[in-house]
């Protein structure tokens, strides 16, 4: 295994760990904001993975474009998440998803 490969796989492993952690957060947290943080962590992992792919040379430019996309997505979703959380708080005085479970069935 070449060093390049080793670095790539190490970085990807870290990315996988970040993604899994983020997933855990998204699945387990009740607060909307905390869920958002989990999702951010997933993006974080993806950033790491994309950077690693860029560095490994398999995906020269697109990987950096992907990073730009990821950063934008992160910002956009964060903003929208805050807006929705705010609206929810205003409408129901809650910020927990479990309290917003009127619609079901």
């Amino acid at each position, binding site marked *: 295994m070449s060093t390049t490969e080793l*670095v790539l796989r190490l970085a990807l492993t870290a990315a*996988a760990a970040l993604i899994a952690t983020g997933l855990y957060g998204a699945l*387990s947290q009740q607060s909307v904001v905390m869920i958002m943080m989990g999702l951010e962590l997933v993006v974080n992992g993806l950033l790491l993975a994309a*950077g690693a792919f*860029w560095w490994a040379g398999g995906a*020269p430019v697109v990987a950096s474009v992907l990073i730009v996309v990821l950063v*934008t997505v992160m*910002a956009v979703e964060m903003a929208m998440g805050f*807006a929705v959380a705010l609206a929810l708080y205003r409408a129901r005085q809650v910020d927990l998803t479990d309290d917003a479970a009127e619609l079901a069935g």
Partner: protein
Amino acid sequence: MTALVAVVGALGAVAVVTGLLVFTVNSMARATFLLLASFVAVGAVLIGFGLGYLGTVVILMMTIEMMIMVVFMVMLMMNPAGLMPMTMVHNRRGSWAIALVVFGLLTTGVWLVPFPTPGPAAVGDPTLALGDALMGGQMLTMMTLGLALLATIVGTVAVAVSRR
């Protein structure tokens, strides 16, 4: 090269550990800062990979974003400073199981799948190449993202603005 291995390993570990800590601390403010730390670590790795511009962007953006988040939480959320410790989690066991399975699968994939590794791309300035791509082939993607940003602005304002 070996140094890079160490740096990536170390910073990666930092990112993961801080990321994990995000969901274990009691205070949301603390969680926010831990998340920021995780992002900074990844940004540093990106810089280490030679993507100086993008790494910096990530770090700066996240810093700002986390600041906003803190403000937001102070404004609205219960228990922002961890004054009244309480866990707001559900289905922790299931979430752990899912997360661990996902991690296991992804890691297995990472170490088994033959990724193409022609080596570090040394052609020119990566920032310049990025700019070329953004103004060339991926221009439509960027325009789409621009529209998405517009939509976000309109949407967040429409949703979040005071009703009266």
